[in-house]
């Protein structure tokens, strides 16, 4: 403290006295702290993430399959040709991935916005509603899948029981060839709408009240205030929510595996790109082809992200 309280008599260029007692190592550490702090994490990322991804890129150009010790040959872009012309498994998986992501995002954003608006202004019992919002979100996805598997069981499940009470016949739900994918979408919406609620609620709470008040004084109805005041101000947060949820929705794996098992069910009803790539790698040990699917999948994710952030910048202007 004394250094601050007593007036300095030495020239400002002279190093502070405390540095004189520190070792050379400490001085070096201070000078290079930028890299000293970042290097361990970056080494981890380089060795365990960048290198594996690069290797996946290499494997996609080989015919690696079977054992991990088996010899593999470089075959150029043959895998890409095979995969991109595969209308049996690959393209349906792309379509399911896009459909799944689009549908769940649509419902999660609409429902999430509605619930966030309900929670926006303080009310009694708010605490309990927030608990209910948080619980699905932190529940283990595999356990959530199992939970819905019981509820949607065609013979003993509560879902068909409820339908019977209102006079509707039993539905196959997860067991049906065409109803399985929509049912898994429902599960995803149940678990992750709360995530969108939390993000949008954080956005709403950070908004200033003044534009709202001004619009109210000008006689705007509550719908007009939402449409022309709140929504435009909230748009950056909405994009963040779509971005975060979108990335995870594209990569959905746990609930699909928990409800339908390997290969997305016997007819591949819920086989998305991630489930397909997993199956190729660890059920069929077809490493070359699975790496190709993964690289294409990765490019799709990057493309979607780029499109969304590009749009975000456009809106910000």
């Amino acid at each position, binding site marked *: 403290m004394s250094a601050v309280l007593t007036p300095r008599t030495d020239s400002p260029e002279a190093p502070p006295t405390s540095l004189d007692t520190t070792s050379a190592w400490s001085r070096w550490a201070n000078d290079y702290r930028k890299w000293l702090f970042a290097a361990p994490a970056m080494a981890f990322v380089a060795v365990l*993430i960048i290198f594996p991804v690069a290797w996946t890129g290499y494997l996609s150009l080989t015919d690696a399959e079977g054992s991990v010790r088996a010899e593999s040959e470089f075959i150029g872009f043959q895998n890409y040709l095979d995969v991109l012309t595969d209308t049996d498994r690959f393209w349906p998986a792309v379509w399911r991935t896009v459909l799944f992501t689009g549908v769940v995002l649509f419902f999660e954003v609409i429902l999430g916005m509605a619930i966030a608006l309900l929670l926006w202004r303080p009310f009694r019992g708010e605490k309990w509603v927030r608990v209910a919002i948080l619980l699905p979100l932190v529940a283990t996805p595999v356990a959530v899948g199992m939970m819905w598997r019981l509820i949607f069981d065609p013979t003993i499940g509560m879902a068909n029981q409820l339908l019977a009470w209102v006079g509707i016949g039993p539905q196959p739900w997860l067991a049906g060839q065409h109803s399985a994918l929509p049912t898994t979408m429902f599960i995803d919406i149940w678990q992750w709408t709360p995530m969108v609620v939390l993000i949008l609620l954080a956005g709403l709470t950070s908004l200033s009240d003044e534009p709202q008040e001004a619009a109210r004084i000008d006689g705007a109805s509550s719908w007009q205030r939402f449409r022309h005041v709140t929504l435009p101000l909230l748009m950056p947060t909405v994009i963040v929510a779509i971005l975060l949820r979108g990335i995870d929705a594209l990569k959905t794996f746990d609930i699909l595996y928990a409800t339908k098992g390997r290969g997305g069910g016997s007819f591949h009803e819920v086989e998305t790109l991630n489930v397909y790539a997993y199956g190729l790698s660890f059920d069929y040990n077809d490493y070359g082809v699975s790496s190709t699917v993964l690289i294409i999948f990765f490019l799709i994710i990057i493309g979607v992200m780029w499109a969304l952030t590009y749009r975000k910048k456009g809106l910000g202007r």
Partner: protein
Amino acid sequence: MKPSKPYRVFRNSALVVVVFALMAPLLWMVAASFKTNVDIYDTAKAFVFSPSLKNYETVLQQANYLQFIGNSLWVAFAATTLSLVLGVPAAYSMSRFTMQKSALVVLMARVIPGVSLLVPWYYVFSNLKMVGGFSVLILSHMFVSLPLIVYIMMGYFDGLPAELEEAALVDGLTHIGAFRRITLPLSLPGVATAGILSFIFSWNNFMFALVLSGSDTKTLPVAIFDFVGYASIDWGGLMAAATVVTLPIMLIALFVQKYVVSGLTAGATKG
């Protein structure tokens, strides 16, 4: 301005529906975990049944769940601790020196599909005979934890005024001393947020353990599948197992709700 009465009636009924829709399935799962399989198959006993602890006996004794609970705890704890040690200083550097490219690389890990790491990892670590051990499992969970921690902590450090450190430098502390004695203590709420979120994500992680764990090292989300047979499912045991997996993490989340929410929404309002 106080909301009008019709709106309050509408809001309250809508919220009752929302809370019911979110809570009922979870309560149903817990209820089923106390039913015998005979009662689960009997729709007349959907709501009225005599609770039994038999499923929990199966889960905790026969299915060896105490060991899997220990595995999950150990993997989540180790992955979180190591990620904090690596991630917090890195996030500080990236925030203070605006290392945007490095930050982007770390954050890319949030985008990469996990399978695309698993293939090369499986290649390398099965040749090293390390698949099935804890160390590979912990490293794989750090793939999720580290980027999450860097992401949350960068936001937190961005929000701390640089003046505090400058004042400490004037008072004669070194840069590293200022980080250790001023910035780090001030950012403890952020570290808690990042650590709790990392723990939850690691506890819930399924895909890495599915490939990389062995029969002795498997974590709870993988162990759930012990109750799903090819021919039949032990529903009571399955629901008890699902409850054992989810209940601890939900309780933790309730106690530290504030941190969980701030972690999940980190960076959402910066635009």
